[in-house]
């Protein structure tokens, strides 16, 4: 695989997301695969942020430390980014924003100064169009031909009028020409032979899209980074997709509204992050007791408490698995990438409705905000299974909401859809749904509910494997480390090791087959973005097995393949 990395750094509000987005579109259009991630501070203006794009001749799913092109919209990018530059890497900077110290740093043959804003203004364009100058400058290092970039600008800005699009194109050309002038002709990154159609999108688009594909009808939420993207997505498309998305006064209201809607028969969800999730857990217990389906997206960020609101971590796993007080059926899913995010949302709703229980989907900032090119989603693969429901006629006048059944699943009637009435309760209840006090009914009702959990466990989503079949070592992870593990496995295997990657799209309950995998010979390493090894703990709790080693990160930054390899330091095969 050949890759090429572009990092654009600047202050919030300087438009680096805009530069990034232009490039993402154009790069994809030109035929590459790409993975792009973002790093930003919890503020609206200022600070130091970056947007990093990795393009490749094969599908990619993680990022690299080393950079080929550094685009500096601010001084900090120059100061902080230099060390990441690959030998021969190029810096494109705006000389107008650098102080004397930084100017010294860029006094090198591979560094090219382009006063982005000035170039735009000299061409009679507003300052904001400087973004297109930067995009054009980068483009000169990617392609000999600016056509695709021009097309992209037309597509992106055409709706704002011809003049805007033309202005962007003009300044992009200026940036393009200027870099060709300064940097001369250089070899360009390799392209895939036949990339075919790809979707370019991020986790926070794939998740809500997956929900819409799965027939979402109702959402209620309270904004919280990094889940807000999901909420705003459904807000934007709700009206046309026949979905009610109602902003709540707080997360408690959000989940309870969604539970009310779900009880009434609407596929419902909410989305939040750690603190908001905590506020929702009481209602998860209600959903467990009253057997009301509900899907909650918890997009993780580094805790505890407010922590680092715009960074990434996988520190809520233990808490999501414990979920709430008391014992009740539940599942926790953990999509590893954008594609899986789309399809797992459908699975989440099916699980929630088939077992009439809460399902948590663990996302995180890295998955939420990263853009990637993926094969087009196949809607025909999205099956909508609403579980055991009954029509009003089938239910009859004496419908029992919590009828004892062999599998513990009681047929669901929506209130108002039949002659019978639907009585649901968070208090302990009898088959009808009325409150009880006696030990016998309590025990039977607990057993009825928990029978469902056995089924959920039996059909838990299987681990997704890659690499060697009979490995000497295994790298095991969940959620957004999937791509990093996959790449580390590939590199190790290319280096002659026999390593297998194990990604867990479902972390609770864990699939039985994971236990079997873990019992095979070979070293086991658990890779996760948290301090205490929460996945490790869940695995030990279930299978009473401890891994050989642990690879953890908890500084708020995403794990990539290099991070894993560095931590392994050869210990994975051969060596120690």
């Amino acid at each position, binding site marked *: 695989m050949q890759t090429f990395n572009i990092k654009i750094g600047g202050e919030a509000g300087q438009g680096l997301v805009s530069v990034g987005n232009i490039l993402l579109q154009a790069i994809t259009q030109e035929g590459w695969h790409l993975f792009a991630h973002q790093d930003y501070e919890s503020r609206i203006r200022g600070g130091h942020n970056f947007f990093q794009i990795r393009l490749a001749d094969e599908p990619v799913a993680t990022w690299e430390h080393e950079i080929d092109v550094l685009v500096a919209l601010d001084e900090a990018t120059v100061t902080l980014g230099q060390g990441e530059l690959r030998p021969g890497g190029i810096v494109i900077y705006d000389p107008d924003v650098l102080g004397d110290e930084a100017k010294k740093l860029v006094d090198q043959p591979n560094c090219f100064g382009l006063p982005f804003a000035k170039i735009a203004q000299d061409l009679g364009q507003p300052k904001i169009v400087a973004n297109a100058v930067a995009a054009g400058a980068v483009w000169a290092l990617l392609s000999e031909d600016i056509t695709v970039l021009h097309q992209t600008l037309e597509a992106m800005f055409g709706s704002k009028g011809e003049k805007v699009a033309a202005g962007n194109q003009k300044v992009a050309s200026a940036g393009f020409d200027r870099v060709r002038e300064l940097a001369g002709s250089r070899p360009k990154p390799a392209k895939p032979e036949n990339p*075919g159609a*790809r979707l370019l999108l991020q986790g926070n688009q794939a998740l809500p899209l997956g929900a819409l594909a799965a027939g979402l009808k109702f959402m209620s939420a309270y904004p919280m980074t990094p889940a807000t993207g999901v909420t705003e997505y459904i807000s934007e498309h709700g009206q046309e*997709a026949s979905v009610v998305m109602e902003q709540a006064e707080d997360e408690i209201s959000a989940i309870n509204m969604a539970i*009310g*809607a779900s009880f009434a028969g609407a596929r419902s969800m909410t989305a939040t992050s750690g603190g908001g999730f905590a506020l929702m857990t009481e209602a998860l217990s209600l959903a467990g007791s009253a057997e009301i389906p509900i899907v909650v997206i918890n997009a993780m960020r580094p805790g505890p408490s407010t922590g680092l609101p715009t960074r990434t971590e996988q520190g809520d796993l233990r808490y999501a698995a414990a979920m709430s007080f008391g014992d009740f059926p539940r599942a926790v899913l953990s999509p590893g990438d954008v594609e899986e995010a789309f399809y797992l949302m459908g699975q989440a709703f099916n699980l929630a409705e088939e077992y009439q229980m809460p399902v948590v989907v663990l996302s995180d900032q890295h998955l939420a905000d990263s853009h990637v090119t993926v094969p087009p989603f196949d809607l025909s693969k999205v099956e909508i299974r609403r579980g055991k429901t009954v029509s009003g006629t089938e239910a009859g006048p004496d419908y029992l909401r919590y009828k004892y059944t062999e599998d513990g699943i009681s047929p669901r009637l*929506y209130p108002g859809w039949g002659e019978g009435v639907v009585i*649901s*309760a968070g208090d302990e209840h009898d088959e009808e749904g009325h409150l009880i006090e006696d030990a016998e009914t309590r025990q039977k009702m607990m057993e009825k509910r928990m029978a469902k959990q056995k089924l959920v466990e039996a059909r838990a989503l299987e681990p997704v494997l890659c690499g060697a079949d009979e490995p000497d070592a295994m790298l095991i992870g969940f959620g957004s480390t999937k791509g990093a593990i996959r790449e580390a496995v590939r590199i190790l295997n290319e280096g002659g090791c026999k390593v297998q990657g194990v990604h867990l799209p479902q972390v609770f309950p864990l699939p039985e087959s994971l236990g079997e995998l873990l019992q095979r010979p070979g070293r086991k390493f658990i890779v996760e973005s948290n301090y205490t090894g929460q996945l490790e703990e869940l695995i030990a709790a279930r299978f009473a097995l401890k891994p050989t080693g642990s690879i953890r990160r908890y500084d708020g930054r995403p794990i990539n393949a290099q991070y894993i390899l560095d931590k392994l330091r050869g210990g994975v095969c051969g060596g120690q």
Partner: protein
Amino acid sequence: MVASKQTEFTLTKDTAWCPGCGNFGIIRALSQALEGLGLKANEVLYVSGIGQAGKLPHYIKGNVLNTLHGRTLPTATGAKLANGDLHVFAIGGDGDGYAEGGNHFLHAVRKNVNITYLVHDNQVFGLTKGQASPRSDQGMVTGTTPQGVALEAFNPLATAITLNAGFVARSYAGDREHLSRTIQAAIQHEGFALIDILQPCVTFNKINTYQFYSSRVYDLDQEEGYDRTDRQVAWARSFEWGERIPIGIFYQTLRPTLADHYGELLKKPLVKQEHDKNYVAGLIDSYKIG
């Protein structure tokens, strides 16, 4: 079918309430109101909180969602948005609604969803054995306030009026006709309707008894010249609490409901709408390149 209509909302004999509890008056009035309007049990949804009041739906026929302490209003809001064909009640105590659920109270009023909110206002936490609620009189001695309640009692009517609720009423568990009439008016009101119901708790509230109320309550609806569309007058009147205590509809006004805001989308109950796969396919396509 008169016979069946009369028994549609018959009550369960066996309740977990104390003999003499004001809740009996409320449930009878509710049953009377529903039968009077000719509703069917399966068209009605009671969303209940946790507390003595929250047990009510288990003693009358209809769909029931027994939720959490304090969470009736968002849950009822979600259910109503999902199926506008249901007549949705939120039912809970004063602790449920004004303590634990205070924030939802503020914002449910603002959302103006077409539901009826019945607050059994016994001015104590009944189920947990008589602690002070936001409605307890200043000075009332309870298990958590041995020195007497320090805070001024919360005024739910004035608060709802301040938030421009469309239907703000008070009634009394001891006056079945008044309560039943008020419930019917609330059901018929398009939008959020609050009825704060004075409910004697014979076990824990020795201040606000039947006797206390019976000599004090008077019906606003019968006050000459009382204009229930005048917000400021309604607000001021809601503070009257002494020798005379007004009951009736304090304030009524019509505002667009939340469903109106959703326009076409909620013209038909959401739960009865088909899933539009084509729209999703189009969205997916919008990300396609190459």
